[in-house]
């Protein structure tokens, strides 16, 4: 079993390398080989979601949240769904993935399968109805066909949105999915985050068909905002084992807000928020009690590490994610949305900052050192956010440009950091992350001198 798990880790790493190479290859022009009767189409959005799915699968495999084979098959089905332009095949891929999700959990036989199966298959049914509607109105199954945009109607949009909300908000009705499971229910729902993230793909893919109606944007923003705010409030008061689920759902809600804005800035913000889902899962998934005892870092280091996973410091990835969402909303002059994102960020900070106390009393295990590593990755992702945006997310924005509106962009600020621009290309929000880091180092030296001087004076007086 351990050797099988090791082989699966190796497979994920090799697949990640392959997807990274593909990401570089399709950054300008999508790949449409003549294989399989022209059903294959790989563009930047496909490789981005494939990358995130593989990262999530790797994290879940390392944390032993699910058996090896279901995770492997799930990633294969989802990768197949991302790599095709035929929406019928996409729906088939999601159906297979959902069936693997239903059947492949480590569940006792006494737990009823039917309620869980129904809730997990509902998004698939909605998506299938939408795809059928699109084919009826446009006469084609392919989203990149020239007349496919004709089929983008309210009927199709609402069913895709419903599928996305039902699929990604799965933790909201986790109590139905986990009824009857007595040990480790949180393990089961944390394993389901892979499919929950995958359900954001169909909604973004709609931008390939054409621009959206204003009402569709409003509906997505409303539902995404409600999901983000409500789940973060639940996270604040939840017991420690359930807190991660609610935080992950909140992160998906923030991503939906960004993706629903329909501007370049919104897509950048939404995609960056999705990138944080594997990070938060790795950092905040508390171990099952059967983990072996290991060296635990000091409480100070642990609490530091958890704070670096919260939006409390301007150099961390969660802060940059919220800044991007707020910048995108400000660029579109939607300051009410700015307020919702701001409050969500504050509550997220409070939730994570309160974590050290229960963590110190939990069973020590591998997660102690993992949190420190993940915090380091969070800082690295935050400081190098301009490079991440330029390499992974700008190609997506360029390839989806046909469906986006010009009310906002997040651009690289040469040698400074990131800058959010409105429709008139004027800056509305600025994040000079590299400048702040360098100036902080200089001021750190000054502050150290000040504190030394203070202690010398106190010792002399006292």
């Amino acid at each position: 079993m351990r050797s099988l798990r090791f082989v699966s880790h190796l497979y994920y790493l090799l697949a990640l390398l392959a997807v990274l190479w593909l990401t570089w290859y399709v950054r300008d022009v999508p790949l449409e080989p003549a294989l399989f009767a022209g059903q294959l189409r790989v563009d930047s959005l496909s490789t981005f979601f494939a990358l995130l799915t593989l990262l999530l699968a790797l994290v879940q495999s390392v944390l032993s949240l699910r058996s090896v084979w279901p995770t492997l098959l799930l990633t294969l089905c989802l990768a197949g769904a991302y790599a095709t332009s035929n929406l019928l095949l996409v729906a088939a891929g999601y159906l297979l993935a959902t069936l693997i999700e239903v059947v492949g959990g480590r569940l006792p036989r006494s737990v009823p399968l039917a309620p869980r199966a129904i809730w997990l298959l509902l998004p698939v049914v909605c998506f299938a109805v939408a795809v059928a509607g699109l084919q009826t109105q446009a006469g084609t199954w392919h989203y990149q066909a020239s007349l496919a945009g004709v089929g983008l109607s309210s009927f199709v949009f609402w069913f895709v949105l419903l599928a996305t909300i039902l699929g990604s908000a799965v933790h909201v009705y986790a109590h139905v999915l986990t009824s009857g499971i007595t040990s480790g229910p949180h393990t089961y729902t944390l394993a389901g985050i892979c499919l929950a993230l995958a359900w954001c793909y169909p909604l973004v893919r709609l931008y390939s068909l054409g621009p959206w109606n204003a009402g569709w944007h409003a509906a997505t923003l409303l539902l995404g905002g409600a999901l983000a705010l409500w789940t973060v409030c639940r996270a604040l008061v939840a017991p420690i084992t359930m807190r991660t689920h609610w935080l992950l759902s909140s992160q998906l809600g923030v991503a939906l807000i960004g993706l629903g804005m329909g501007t370049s800035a919104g897509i950048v913000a939404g995609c960056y928020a999705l990138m944080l889902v594997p990070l938060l899962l790795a950092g905040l998934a508390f171990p099952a009690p059967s983990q072996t005892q290991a060296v635990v870092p000091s409480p100070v280091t642990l609490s530091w590490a958890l704070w670096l996973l919260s939006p409390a410091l301007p150099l961390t990835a969660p802060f940059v994610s919220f800044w991007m969402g707020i910048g995108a909303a400000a660029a579109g002059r939607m300051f009410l949305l700015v307020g919702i994102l701001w409050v969500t960020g504050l509550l997220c900070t409070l939730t994570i900052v309160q974590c050290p106390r229960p963590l110190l009393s939990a069973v020590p295990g591998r997660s102690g050192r993992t949190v420190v590593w993940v915090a380091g990755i969070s800082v690295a992702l935050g400081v190098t956010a301009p490079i991440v945006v330029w390499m992974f997310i700008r190609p997506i924005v360029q390839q989806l440009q046909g469906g986006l509106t010009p009310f906002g962009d997040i651009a690289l600020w040469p040698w400074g950091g990131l800058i959010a621009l409105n429709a008139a290309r004027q800056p509305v929000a600025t994040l000079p992350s590299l400048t702040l880091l360098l100036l902080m180092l200089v001021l750190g030296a000054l502050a150290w001198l000040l504190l030394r001087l203070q202690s010398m004076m106190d010792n002399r007086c006292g």
Partner: protein
Amino acid sequence: MGEWLGTLGLAWPRLVLYPGGLSALGFAWVLDCLLVYSVDRSVFASTRTAPVDGATGGGPWLILDLSAVVAPLLIISLLPVPLSGYFAYTPDLLVALVLLDWPWLCWYGRRCMPVLSGSTSRGVAPSVSSPWKGGQGVLEGWRHLYEAYGLLVLSLLAVAQTQGSLRLEALTVSSASATLAHQALRWLGMAGWSVALLMLLLREADLDQTMTSGLWWGLRLRTGGHVLLAWLPWFPLLQPRSWLLLLPLLLLVSALALVTWRPDMLLRHLWPIVWRSLMLGIGLTFSRVIYELLVARLC
């Protein structure tokens, strides 16, 4: 890259002299002298003789103390206050607030650590003494903090809505606001911002063995930074008469000092009324402005 390095190299007067560095530390010290909190200073004097490395020693606490000083000092250095010169890489309101409140988070986190408190276990949320209540009111203290922060965020959004931008420089220039609702929203936003500071900044920590020099300076710099930040939106009103620019700053500091010295006289009864009126006023005006925007965009 040369331009960026040049800008950073020319920033040293901002970091060391004005508005950051010595000026910021001096302003924070003056505020500390003026805003006399009702706490036992003899306790604090004994903690300040502890070494800089902290009671438990070690690198992580030193980094925490340093960061508590560096974060607010950095943002004060980058504020576009008068006579500070132009700096091309100024952050925005969100970054400014997060950096300013970092010392408070450090203090809160340090209080939450059960290891540090020696014989007593402090696994519960720290109590925050309030000049209003004159004692230890845990639930009331946190409720007032949430109310103050809620009013602060709403006021900031109101001001940002009228500017159309979250940048700090945009606060200091007048916006072309044509309608009465826009101007009313800006005035209400500035009023709400100033009032929220009165409750936000007068939350004095219990001075015990968790307070170190770094945290002490950090909390004072936080106060100074918030006051300076709240001074910025007043510039467009006083541009024609630049000799009056210091007036809003003096008024804000006087209001803070007055409320600290005479808490019973003022807002123990007035705070709920003032808070509710401002929240309602800003909320209604915001709705009106958003309605006008939607009408302009959709029709």
